[in-house]
């Protein structure tokens, strides 16, 4: 059964000037050299493996971690591996101001939680969200709290549609549920 509230450690993907990195494309997330891999559990090792400054991400990430990225995360190709590699590492959530359209569909359809949060860049720039902080997010209400600084903020919650698919465990499972419900 899926949770609606998570607590996790943050990875804030920002550049040296302190801003969230924008337009991270699917080749930076999961390089095409590894597209032949079909076993999801083997994909984790390559997550963000082609993103300058974050190449050791996969060896440091822990189950439950939460990623914050800049706008248009997952731009580019339609490869599902760019979502699955995070599922393999048991990353619990990715938050970005916006996602590439296909990336967003792929994530939602496979039941992987992603949140669009337009204001998150400001919070990062103001230093209210830093790598290593532990945050608690409720995907139903969008309420979030930084447990490391006891700071709270409001994010855009998951849409009903997205939550229904997520709770069913993906789009195919949701179709079965529609029939029986």
């Amino acid at each position, binding site marked *: 059964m899926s949770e609606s509230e998570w607590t996790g450690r943050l990875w804030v993907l920002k550049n040296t000037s302190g801003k969230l990195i924008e337009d991270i494309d699917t080749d930076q997330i999961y390089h095409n050299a590894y597209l032949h891999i079909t076993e999801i559990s083997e994909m984790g090792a390559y997550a963000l493996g082609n993103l300058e400054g974050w190449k050791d991400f996969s060896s440091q990430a822990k189950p439950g971690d939460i990623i914050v990225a800049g706008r248009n995360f997952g731009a580019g190709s*339609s490869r599902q591996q760019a979502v699955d590699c995070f599922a393999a590492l048991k990353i619990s959530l990715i938050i970005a101001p916006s996602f590439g*359209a*296909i990336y*967003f*569909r*792929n994530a*939602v*359809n*496979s039941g992987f939680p992603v949140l669009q949060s337009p204001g998150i860049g400001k919070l990062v720039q103001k230093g209210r969200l830093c790598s290593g902080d532990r945050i608690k997010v409720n995907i139903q209400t969008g309420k979030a709290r930084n447990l490391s600084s006891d700071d709270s903020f409001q994010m855009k919650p998951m*849409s*009903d*549609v*997205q939550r229904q*698919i997520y709770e069913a465990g993906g*789009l*195919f499972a*949701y*179709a*079965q549920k*529609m029939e029986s419900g």
Partner: protein
Amino acid sequence: MTHTVIEKIIQNHTQQDVFPGKIIWMTLDVRTARDFGGPNVVKNFQREYGDQPVEANKKTFFTFDLSVPACSLKYADNQQICREFAGKKGIKVYDVDEGIGSHVLIEQGHAVSGSTVVGTDSHLNILGAVGSFGQGMGDVDITFAFKTGKTWFEVPETVKVVLKGEIENSVSAKDLTLFILRHLRTRKAALKAVEFYGEPAKNLSLAGRITLCSMVTEMAGIIGFVPEVNDGFIKEVRGLSGITYEPLLADKDASYAEEIEINVSGLTPQVAAPFQPTNVKDVSELQDVSIDSGFIGSCTNGRTEDLRAAASVLKGRKVKQGVMLKIVPATRKVYSEILEQGILKDLFESGVVLSNPGCGGCAEGHIGLTGEGETQISTGNRNFAGKQGKGQNYLASPEVVAASCILGRIASPEDL
């Protein structure tokens, strides 16, 4: 609440309140899969749902258009996988003889004003030309659509593009489209719906609307609509599909993400240079580029009107020795029209290679790829590196492609 065109269509297909940014469940009027993506849909469906039926088999279609008839074993297998599945589920197949799927949907009256259609074709938003919300999606999404007749969608914002000024008769819908692409690039309409206004848009024929709406994909947009129509367009739609076009207008005070005016007066023929469709220049800037081959067809410029325009340039002239001009009608219907109207004869006598309908050279091959070092001028919609072989591709109108193939260099009909 007031709505733009896309918001209205979605509102008519969902129980939820529609506004930009909202993710809703949308009922589908039609879903399709083609010979690319189709076999994956079949495999997904069989794995997930076994022998269960598709949601509405009479509103579900396969359209084969990429490799027709199959020119590789893989495509032959894939098409057969779809045919066998279709047979079991009672789904109609528009097979290898019919032509480009999106055009067949318009001709057969499956895509009508105000309807929702999804399929495994990234240019399915071409259906905006007849006021239908068409959308290309991946095989997971289309499998779900086959099973449930529904899809989820984030309601896009809408951009209003107003075309100002008058255009000469010699300027084609493709020139107008490339000129708009030159202005919007891939930024202004990205992930948004577009509504085109102004006389030059309103006056577009069905083929012209198809040309414009097909390249909203290259503008990175969701879909384009031309809400204002002319009588000729309405007649064409009725003549082709037997269906009376229902007007589809935005509410007067609907709200737009942005309003953009583009002045099109004095427009001359436009050409997109490699390797981006947005890399658009005036034809006069490219007259030193010599070409080896040409292609006229694709979902963007494969209608009878397009081939007639090409024939009007080619008639009584010859394609230059050493240049190969490949022509592919969009559909079987177009083929029959060019046959009856004598266009086929004019084209044939000018020395072109003419094939059966389909995506032809636009997709991977079938009527030929470009080799390394080859320069082609095409009426297609994409000129990305590698899209049609190793050569360089320029994009232009049927008239410009025809004139270029007569002279062996990029040229407009005026240069003849």
